[in-house]
């Protein structure tokens, strides 16, 4: 029985044609948006995407950006990482080589941002990670010197750990703290270590350190151990999908002390899922939705009008990433990747929705402040600002 060669030939031809498809930027400025749209933290990805689309729309509505004498529009290339490190790296590779983007915004979570940053650095494309607070994102893995092309729009965990440690010992007056974190997540692990350093420098003592792995749902053994150690507070830098489980299990075991969170807590979804169990807890964050800053208020109003929800810090930081990028593109007047990078690193005073930012020479980390929020009556309520 002879095999019919025709279907195979058609398939091969189609494959070759589709494979050869590389997109050429013509009249638009292509910006890659790498976000965690599915997977463990989809609310983060959704915020990022929404803010990116809002920012792009505003830039385009204002006429676009002048590049090489012509006004060009922003075109977004949105890719999903599914909150997985390998997919993040693949997505960045794709937008650099196939879509030939001028710059990249994202990914958000540091476990995705770290591998993505390596690829962006090698590819020589500017990457701004809106929400990644892990110090290693902008540092070269071997030499520990700052990377050239990787920037971030948020503060680093060094600053965040310091802020939280101080808050715990000075404002919450805690003497003993326990920690529970995801050992498989680089960023949450580093937040815990830096909190511990800061808390102990302030005179406190960390009495229990417990861990779990990404995807674990049962924390009863760890929480029972923490309860036995008798802490005043528990530092819980977990993502918003794990916090409700952890807090509810703690309450079921009779562990009633306050929990302290990091910016990993920051989305409204957390309050929806956790409900009364999380009432009264504090967390650090990048901005407060109740601010009176007019720049921020304008952003909050546009976001609310477009998406019917209060923007979280991921959205605010993504919007700021685009703002920084826009300022750099206007200054550079070209989509040459190196020029964009140089213009970005010269940003001395950017009034963002998350505060005033500037980059110091050679570093991709902006100098900016943090806020402490409290969960009260199903809302994030501003408590205090902390400047560097």
């Amino acid at each position, binding site marked *: 029985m002879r095999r019919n060669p025709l279907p195979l030939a058609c398939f091969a031809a189609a494959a070759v044609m589709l494979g050869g498809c590389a997109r050429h930027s013509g009249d638009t400025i292509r910006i890659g948006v790498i976000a965690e749209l599915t997977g463990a933290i989809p609310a983060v990805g959704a915020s990022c995407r929404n803010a990116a689309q809002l920012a792009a729309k505003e830039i385009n509505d204002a006429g676009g950006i002048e590049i090489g004498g012509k006004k060009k529009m922003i075109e977004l290339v949105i890719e999903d990482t599914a909150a997985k490190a390998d997919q993040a790296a693949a997505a960045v590779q794709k937008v650099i080589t196939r879509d030939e983007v001028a710059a990249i915004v994202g990914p958000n979570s540091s476990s995705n941002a770290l591998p993505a940053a390596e690829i962006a650095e090698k590819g020589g494309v500017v990457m701004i990670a809106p929400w990644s607070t892990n110090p290693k994102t902008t540092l070269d893995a071997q030499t520990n010197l700052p990377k050239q092309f990787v920037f971030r729009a948020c503060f680093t965990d060094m600053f965040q750990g310091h802020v939280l440690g101080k808050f715990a010992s000075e404002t919450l007056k805690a003497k003993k703290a326990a920690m529970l974190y995801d050992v498989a997540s680089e960023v949450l692990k580093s937040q815990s270590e830096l909190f511990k350093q800061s808390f102990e420098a302030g005179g406190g003592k960390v009495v229990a350190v417990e861990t779990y792995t990404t*995807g674990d749902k049962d924390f009863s053994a760890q929480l029972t151990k923490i309860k036995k150690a008798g802490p005043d507070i528990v530092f819980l830098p977990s993502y918003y999908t794990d916090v*409700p489980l952890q807090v509810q299990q703690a309450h079921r075991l009779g562990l009633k002390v306050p929990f302290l969170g990091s910016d990993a807590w920051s989305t409204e979804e957390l309050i929806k899922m956790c409900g009364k169990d999380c009432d009264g807890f504090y967390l650090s964050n990048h901005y407060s939705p109740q601010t009176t800053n007019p720049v921020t208020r304008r952003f909050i109003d546009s976001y609310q009008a477009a998406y019917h929800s209060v923007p979280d810090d991921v959205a605010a930081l993504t919007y700021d990433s685009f703002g920084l990028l826009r300022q750099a593109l206007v200054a550079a007047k070209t989509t040459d990747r190196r020029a964009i990078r140089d213009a970005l690193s010269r940003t001395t005073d950017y009034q963002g929705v998350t505060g005033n930012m500037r980059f110091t020479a050679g570093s991709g980390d902006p100098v900016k402040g943090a806020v402490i929020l409290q969960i009260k009556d199903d809302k994030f309520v501003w408590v205090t600002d902390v400047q560097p």
Partner: protein
Amino acid sequence: MTYFLQQSLNALQLGSVYALIALGYTMVYGVLTMINFAHGDFFMVGAFLCFISVARLHLPFVPTLLISMAGVALLAVGVEVAAYRPLRNAPRVSAIITALGVGIFLEHFTLALSPYPLHIPPAFANVTWSAGGLAVSSLQVVTVLLSVGLMAALQFVVARTPLGIAMRAVSWDRDTAALLGVPVDRVISATFAIGGALGGAAGMLYALSYPVIDPYMGVLVGWKAFISAVVGGIGDVRGAMLGGYILAAVEIAVAVALPSTYRDFVAFSLLIVLLIFRPYGILGRPRPQKL
């Protein structure tokens, strides 16, 4: 002492869930000599049915339990008829690949319908009793009692009913059982239905205890339950129950004694060692190869 009791309670609750899922694996292996790798995803579907029942239909505990169990039972029978029966006499590898494929299909189908992790509101008032430092929640009690009840019911079915006799006959020698008039296809479907129902019940109990569900939740739990079934002796119903509680006890014990980071590593290493010395599991027997 209280601490030890508290951790034991934790282990009992976790073990009940693992045992219920492990039963599904072991029963299917018993009658078909095939590992249904999609079973962890049946468990996930049970959890999602529980979500629909509690969060969307606002039904109380018992109807939710029935919906989860019946829904997954139907799914299991459907999968058996559509995916496994055509491969009944194919090489074992084909059936395993199909099972993995069914699992991935279920995960992505659910992902397409619901990409965000979902939160299940409390289905019934959860009371926590405190006795001298020991915290017992009504949810834990319900989980353990319901699981034990279901397992007892299963044991009764397997040992005392004609269906149970037929299931055991098919697991010993399928062809001879067919020759002796046992309706093999129906018995296998019934086995899948029962295994699925137990998995669905486990999904519901798990979802109520850990109320954030996502399409991939069945993967890790499924593997752990599979290992429980193997450790207890695959093919043996009492082995699955025993294996579930042993795995949970080892996991909790390791988390207590060592930094919790080592939990999975040590737990699975101990199981590997156990299998080295008892390759067929604790209650398992080598299957004689008839020549």
